[in-house]
């Protein structure tokens, strides 16, 4: 389906260029409508504000370690817009935009990074989202299993799963793509290649020219898209989703992107990358170019954008306060969810712990 964009020929799919213009000379591709483009923009604005706010909260000591999404938003926003609500969304950990597209409250995301397990409670019937997976790439097999289950149940739901460029080195990446190929599973592997795994640059991660080309070794297609172009991300995902839904199996999408911020708030990226590199990528910021697009196409006015950003900031602040005031997990809850029913041996430990904590209060 991506004949015109074979990564082995050095091709990368870009629709919206850095100037906010739609590239001409492209074959026919699924396109975001104006309404969708505006929605993508709005979600990207709130994602950016929420992300920045988390980083500054961390500096204020009100938020533990947080991994910023800045610069990568188009990847999960564009791709989540290209699938339906019943399709499983398996997160890595930099998909805040996608979560908001899916309708997950921002509060929940904050709650998770505030260190509350309820941040991973995604109402299953409602969101079809898997929680953040901390061990890199270990979520990939889950996606393949979910895809199998949907196929088994005879639904037309597909699964989209994310990981990073670093994550392509992990055995799970290989095994998952391989299983998916053999099972012809309806799954999209979306790699956010943001050029670094913490401090380790992409070329220390793998010697292949692109990540997308790895797909061919598993018997299916891979495509590299400009991950800062929400149109390209949308188009590729839409094609891959249709492909999977029709029973034609998996696809690998490499979103070529950049993490503008630190790996996490505990990281100092100046140790391992050049200012110039960051400056070059800032020009490619997905938000800037989408803003140009919605303005050029008169989907919104400058003034409305100012308001939108102000609103977004407010929303982020409110969501954080809500999360911060959320009920803390109790001692009982730290035991109760180990199993469906607490076995006697654990009940006894809980009792002992209650006694210890009581004894100290």
């Amino acid at each position, binding site marked *: 389906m991506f004949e015109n964009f074979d990564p082995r020929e050095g091709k990368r799919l870009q629709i919206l260029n850095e100037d906010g213009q739609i590239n001409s000379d492209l074959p026919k591709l699924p396109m975001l409508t104006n309404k969708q483009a505006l929605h993508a923009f709005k979600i990207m604005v709130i994602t950016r504000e929420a992300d920045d706010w988390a980083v500054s909260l961390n500096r204020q000591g009100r938020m533990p370690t947080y991994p910023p999404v800045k610069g990568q938003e188009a990847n999960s926003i564009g791709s989540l817009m290209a699938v339906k609500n019943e399709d*499983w969304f398996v997160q890595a950990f930099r998909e805040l935009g996608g979560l908001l597209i899916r309708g997950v409250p921002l509060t929940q995301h904050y709650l998770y990074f505030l260190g509350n*397990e*309820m941040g*991973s*409670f*995604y*109402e*299953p019937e409602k969101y079809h989202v*898997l*929680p953040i*997976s*901390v*061990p890199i790439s*270990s979520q*990939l*097999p*889950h*996606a*393949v*299993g*979910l*895809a*199998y*289950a*949907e196929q*088994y*149940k005879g639904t037309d739901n597909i699964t989209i799963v994310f990981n990073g460029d670093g994550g392509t080195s992990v*055995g*799970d990446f290989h*095994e*998952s793509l*391989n*299983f998916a190929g*053999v099972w012809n599973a309806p799954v999209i592997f979306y790699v956010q290649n943001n050029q670094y795994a913490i401090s380790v640059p992409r070329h220390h991660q793998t010697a292949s020219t692109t990540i997308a080309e790895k797909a061919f070794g598993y018997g299916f297609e891979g495509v590299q898209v400009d991950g800062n172009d929400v149109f390209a991300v949308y188009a590729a995902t839409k094609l891959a989703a249709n492909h999977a839904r029709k029973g034609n199996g998996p696809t690998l999408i490499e979103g070529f992107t950049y993490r503008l911020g630190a790996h996490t708030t505990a990281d100092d990226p100046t140790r391992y990358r050049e200012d110039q590199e960051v400056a070059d990528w800032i020009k490619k910021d997905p938000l800037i170019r989408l803003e140009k697009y919605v303005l050029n196409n008169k989907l919104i006015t400058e003034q409305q954008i100012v308001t939108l950003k102000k609103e977004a900031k407010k929303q982020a602040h409110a969501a954080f306060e809500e999360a911060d005031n959320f009920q803390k997990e109790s001692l009982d*809850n730290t035991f109760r*969810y*180990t*199993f*469906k029913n607490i*076995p*006697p*041996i*654990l009940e*006894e430990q809980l009792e002992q712990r209650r006694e210890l904590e009581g004894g100290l209060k």
Partner: protein
Amino acid sequence: MQALTIISAVNDALMTEMQNDKNIVTFGEDVGVEGGVFRATVNLQKKYGEKRCFDSPLAENAIVGTALGMAMGGLRPVVEIQFSGFVYPAFNQIITHVSRMRNRTRGALTAPMVIRMPYSGGIRALELHSESMEALFGHIPGIKVVIPSTPYDTKGLLISAIRDEDPVIFMEPKRLYRAFKQEVPEDAYTIPIGKAAIVQPGTQLTLISYGSQMKEAKEATALLQKEGISVELIDLRTIYPYDKSTILESVKKTGRLLVVHEGPRSFGVAAEIIAMVSKDAFEYLEAPPTRLTGADTIFPLPSAEHHYMIHTAHIVKRATEVIRYQP
């Protein structure tokens, strides 16, 4: 009723439950056409089709990881790890996901799945085909670990494991796979996970073992009985969450404890049982609680495996020492 071996009881449990619940799928290396290298899944593909019983590519990590995905997606996977010595690639999935999904998501997503694997030694097998490393699983919060020792228990415990809402590691004593037959009901039945069995009541010594080692434990119990020594033999059956109350009740009665298992001694199952008893039945102990276990060594290749295995006579010897102990 039918007379079944342990391995056919595994197959029978799967046959029975797959009939009852169409969400059960079983897969792993060679489980489809071949029916498993030990024939545990034989005829399942024929009966239930390729979507419910099939071969996977060779990757234990992905077998467990995809099974978890299926479980979260509403299926009830029962996967086979060909030998317990090959489960280690799946450790990451087991520890960081399978055991935690319920807790991580506060119950939104769960992992009702079974990971079956033959374990135990003494069958003159290649390297890594003989180990007994159940204690590793016992230490992982969030999973249950079950080990049957008879055909009857095998069927009942495996069905319980499949119906359990939490993940269960189901370790099968391969040395006993075809060692003996037992009457096993044709219908489905369950044996509760977390309950030990008092195989033989007795008064002078509590002898605890499980799985493959139960054969020698039973023989030793019989031999000791002949010598007029009354042993209470307990089959642990569940390694985690293990049955504290049955153990404590027994030791409080006998005052003496011997725990026997194949796996390495240090940080092994016997350590846990003895630590628990030493605390909770301290005043009842009349002799040092004793372990008779595999050594902290690599399980030897076949020509020297007799240097590792615990024989009936070894149990008799240690049991006698514990019984004769006078402070």
